[in-house]
């Protein structure tokens, strides 16, 4: 009897404890970096006494869950993570708190972030709304074992007149794609599904050819030589050098083809790099490496940047606690711990860390990739632009539109959207 | 036209239930045969086996001398009329009538001629373009009948065709069917649980119970000489009174009444003397006045209640000294009795039937006219 009472008392005190403590609620996507953050949370609670509650959902649900809470005067999320797709919409709608004052007051150093990432998911028109969380810039996965093969080296040299090695330029890479399409292996696997997979992947082709989406005044610059070449090369890769069906592949399906050793190369999000060395998912452990998507010449990259940022919504019920969490999670020590677990860093100091480099030799390539990467247009209608790109590029790949026609259609709609958003005068 | 003959026919269902057992019945060409019995007695199953809608598990079926066990229903050249008419609900009356002929590839002109004849005969000419849902029960009945008639089959199989009609219509249709049979002369097998239909329509009645035939015979023959208490209790309304009684050498004790038997009867039943029997007494064999010629004997009864039907009055009463069993007595239309009143009736002993209480079968007696 006494035992029971003691147990009940213990339970009661144990349960009532957290009820008085402050809790930071955050909506997050179910991705590896979220898992890494989760493992570190007890440290934060120990340091500050603040509980952190992560609501983890899949990407498709996030936007629909966020908007009602952002519109409300007092929402349920203390902090949120923002995909670069939504940055334009969220800031235009005025849903995010500027962080500059807090940064200044606490002397938080934002200069360590990769500048391109600060442009993408940090500052908007000079105001800091977010701290870059993790990056998902795209890189080129390639089979280093095939490159090292002596017979391949001889054959390649005989055919193209230069050495087979890690591609220094985009044109070299395209030749390799052609060369390696043999013996039941494809030179490349693409992710041709509408809208995001194809739009994101093709952006690398555009940048690799020296193209950009728009000039400084938001005038579309797609229907250009670089743009047309990018569409032609993309369609050729899908239809001629890629596996059957890649016009409908999403990330995971394309990754599977690569991981099963059926393709020489695959342009994809850098967080897939870790999966290649996971023997439970991959048949090519240790045979694949990542590098920045090569550009028109050596030293110029063609990678598409991508990232999520931490932000505090205006509707946050406890902004101060949320800032405490942001400060902590983006501190050098915690950012490094996350990187050591396999996360995708955004801070240069983490990329340069000796321990990180020792564990992940490709960290250097990732940093290089970020530094030479290009940003996707960030404005209110980013998702709509992705949608238009997806449709027109898919039509071009299917041969139902000529590259120039598709690009012209994209330009028209992009111009319309940019005007609607006030970006283009 | 054809005779129908069933020899040792059985019907077993997959679960082992025997719906019909060892039925042998010869239906003569042109005969109006009634299959009578309570529900579940196997009469409909027997009919459906004749039609071919049920397979015959054992035994033989001949129609017009040809074995029909394995012949498709369509090729047996019989027509069936169902209890709920089974009209094609989406077809007009004319299509219902002509469907079978059309399926058989009969020429347009012949069809029109026959349909017109039948419609005329049954008085449904006005209804030809209607659908079954727009018809009354009696009209549907006629159409169902017409559908069978128009085929001019060798035999008609009627599966309780009148039971869904109201009493007045039923009686009218009975007469009509009898007339029809007289006109066409086709073999008719008519299944019913209604003893009035059986008595009035059939040339012969085949009474069934629990899947076997109990008695076959002309209506009056079955009525006068029921083979057992079941038949006795099934035919006529009110049916034969069945009373436990004791048979002596020349008399029958019913409660405190002793009925003296005429010598002929006494001799006939001599073998069963001094034992318990069931006395079968028809309600109409009780008279208010003694009749020496008919060898009546007085019976004292206590009135329980009377049912005044108009043309006659049914007295429900108990025999004096035998309070357990009630008997029904047909009385003239002006007869009245108060409950408890004692009435003396004169029973026509010559009509007495006796049954064995163990086997329920009739004790042998001289045949009456």
């Amino acid at each position: 009897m006494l035992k029971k009472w003691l147990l009940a008392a213990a339970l009661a005190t144990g349960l009532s404890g957290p009820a008085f403590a402050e809790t930071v609620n955050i909506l997050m996507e179910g991705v590896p970096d979220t898992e890494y953050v989760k493992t570190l949370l007890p440290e934060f609670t120990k340091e500050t006494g603040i509980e952190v509650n992560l609501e983890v959902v899949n990407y498709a649900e996030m936007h629909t869950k966020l908007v009602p809470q952002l519109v409300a005067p007092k929402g349920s999320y203390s902090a949120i993570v923002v995909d670069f797709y939504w940055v334009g919409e969220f800031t235009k709608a005025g849903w995010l708190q500027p962080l500059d004052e807090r940064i200044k007051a606490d002397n938080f150093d934002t200069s360590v972030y990769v500048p391109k990432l600060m442009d993408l998911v940090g500052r908007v028109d000079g105001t800091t709304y977010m701290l870059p969380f993790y990056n998902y810039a795209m890189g080129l996965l390639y089979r280093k074992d095939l490159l090292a093969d002596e017979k391949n080296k001889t054959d390649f040299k005989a055919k193209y007149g230069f050495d087979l090695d890690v591609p220094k330029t985009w044109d070299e890479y395209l030749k390799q794609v052609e060369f390696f399409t043999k013996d039941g292996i494809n030179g490349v696997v693409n992710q041709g599904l509408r809208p995001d997979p194809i739009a994101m992947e093709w952006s690398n082709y555009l940048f690799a050819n020296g193209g950009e989406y728009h000039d400084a005044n938001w005038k579309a610059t797609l229907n250009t030589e670089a743009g047309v070449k990018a569409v032609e090369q993309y369609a050729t890769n899908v239809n001629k050098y890629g596996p059957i069906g890649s016009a409908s592949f999403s990330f995971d399906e394309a990754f599977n083809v690569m991981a099963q050793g059926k393709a020489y190369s695959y342009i994809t999000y850098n967080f897939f790099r870790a999966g290649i060395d996971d023997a439970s998912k991959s048949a090519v452990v240790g045979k694949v490496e990542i590098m920045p998507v090569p550009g028109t010449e050596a030293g110029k990259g063609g990678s598409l940047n991508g990232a999520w940022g931490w932000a505090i919504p205006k509707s946050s019920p406890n902004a101060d606690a949320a800032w405490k969490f942001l400060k902590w999670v983006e501190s050098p020590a915690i950012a490094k711990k996350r990187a050591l677990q396999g996360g995708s860093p955004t801070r240069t100091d983490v990329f340069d860390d000796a321990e990180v480099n020792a564990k992940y030799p490709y960290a250097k390539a990732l940093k290089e990739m970020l530094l030479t990467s290009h940003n996707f247009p960030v404005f209110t209608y980013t998702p709509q632009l992705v949608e238009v790109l997806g449709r027109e590029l898919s039509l071009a790949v299917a041969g139902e539109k000529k590259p120039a026609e598709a690009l012209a259609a994209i330009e028209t709609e992009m111009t319309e959207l940019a005007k609607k958003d006030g970006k283009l005068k | 036209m054809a005779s129908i003959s069933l020899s040792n026919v059985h019907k077993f269902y997959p679960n082992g239930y025997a719906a019909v057992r060892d039925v042998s019945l010869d239906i003569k060409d042109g005969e109006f045969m009634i299959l009578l019995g309570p529900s579940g007695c196997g009469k409909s199953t027997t009919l459906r086996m004749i039609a071919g809608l049920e397979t015959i598990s054992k035994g033989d079926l001949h129609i017009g001398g040809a074995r029909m066990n394995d012949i498709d229903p369509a090729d047996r050249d019989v027509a069936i009329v169902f209890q709920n008419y089974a009209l094609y609900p989406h077809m007009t009356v004319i299509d219902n009538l002509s469907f079978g002929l059309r399926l058989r590839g009969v020429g347009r002109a012949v069809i029109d001629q026959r349909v017109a004849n039948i419609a005329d005969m049954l008085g449904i000419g006005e209804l030809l373009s209607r659908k079954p849902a727009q018809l009354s029960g009696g009209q549907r009945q006629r159409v169902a009948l017409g559908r069978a008639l128009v085929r001019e089959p060798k035999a008609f199989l009627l599966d309780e065709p009148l039971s869904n009609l109201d009493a007045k219509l039923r009686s009218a249709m009975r007469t009509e069917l009898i007339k029809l049979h007289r006109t066409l002369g086709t073999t008719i097998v008519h299944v019913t649980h209604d003893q009035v239909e059986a008595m009035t329509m059939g040339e012969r009645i085949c009474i069934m119970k629990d899947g076997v035939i109990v008695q076959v015979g002309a209506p009056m023959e079955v009525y006068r000489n029921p083979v057992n208490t079941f038949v006795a209790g099934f035919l006529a309304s009110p049916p034969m009174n069945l009373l436990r009684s004791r048979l002596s050498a020349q008399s029958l004790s019913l409660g405190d009444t002793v009925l003296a038997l005429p010598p002929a009867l006494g001799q006939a039943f001599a073998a069963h003397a001094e034992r318990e029997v069931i006395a079968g007494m028809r309600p109409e064999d009780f008279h208010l006045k003694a009749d020496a010629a008919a060898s009546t004997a007085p019976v004292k009864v206590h009135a329980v209640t009377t049912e005044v039907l108009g043309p006659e009055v049914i007295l429900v009463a108990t025999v004096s000294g035998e309070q357990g069993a009630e008997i029904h007595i047909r009385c003239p239309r002006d007869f009245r009795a108060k409950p408890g009143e004692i009435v003396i009736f004169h029973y026509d002993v010559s009509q007495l039937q006796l049954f064995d209480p163990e086997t329920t079968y009739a004790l042998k007696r001289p045949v009456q006219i």
Partner: protein
Amino acid sequence: MTLAADDRRLNDLPRAEQTAVERRDRMFGWLIASPSLGLLFLVILFPVFWALYTSVHDYTLIAPNFDTFNGIDNYTKALGDPEFRHTLWLTAFFVAAVVLLEFALGFLVALMLNSVERFKAIYYAILLCPLLMNPVIVGLIWRMFLHPSLGIVNYLLSLVGIDPVNWLGSTKVALWTIVMVDIWHQVSFMIVLLLAGLSALPREPYEAARVDGASALRSFWHITVPLMLPVIAVTLLIRLIFAVKTYDLVYIMTRGGPGVATDLVSYFIYRTAFVGLNIGEASAMSAILLAVIMGLTVWLHRYMRSLT
């Protein structure tokens, strides 16, 4: 219908001619119907009217307000958009293919099941399995099965010497693939409804027809089909309405691609609203779709009634 007609007759009576009892009955009727009527208003009528109201305003997620009335602008814009018209035609084709194929297949299976006597419950359970699955799951499973190089379908085909089929990546095949998966998913619905109809058919007309000399095929044409018409009409109608709303399969399997080969109208409207953020135009498109479906429903209903 007849019930409604009777009701109307009662309702048409002038107040004075109704007795107190009748009036009380009517009051009581309204009383017990009011909660469900209220609920109906809240969950159906209110959203419909809200959407119609939105469709004549410039209402976007960026500026979610009714400040700008723009009349039929959203409608003319939607109808003038070749992409929207393409999705409408594509949806019409998809619906026709899905409904007709599922009906034919469903009727066949229902007829077969109707004559089955043993293990009916087991067949039922197996058939209902796909129907109980979420369309998203169905899409994901089939996307896996149909993976051109790693999927089981092409592997099985390769065993009998058939070249791999580009199920979702070819503009010529993709829509039919979606049709096929939808049939796999939804055909049980047809089977179950038609089977219910078949088992409720009276047995006697068939027996009459057998004695009348009808073969199985003729019984089917002359009795089953005409008697089943009301059930068939309702089944087709429900399936048609659901098919128009098909969205999940396309979202999971093709996102409308390759090109615009599988861009069904519901998915297009969804994108207009939540990617394009243009709720006003999306509402106008929905209203157009609603009008089309209602027209179809009325037509089909009338047509089927004229047959029975």
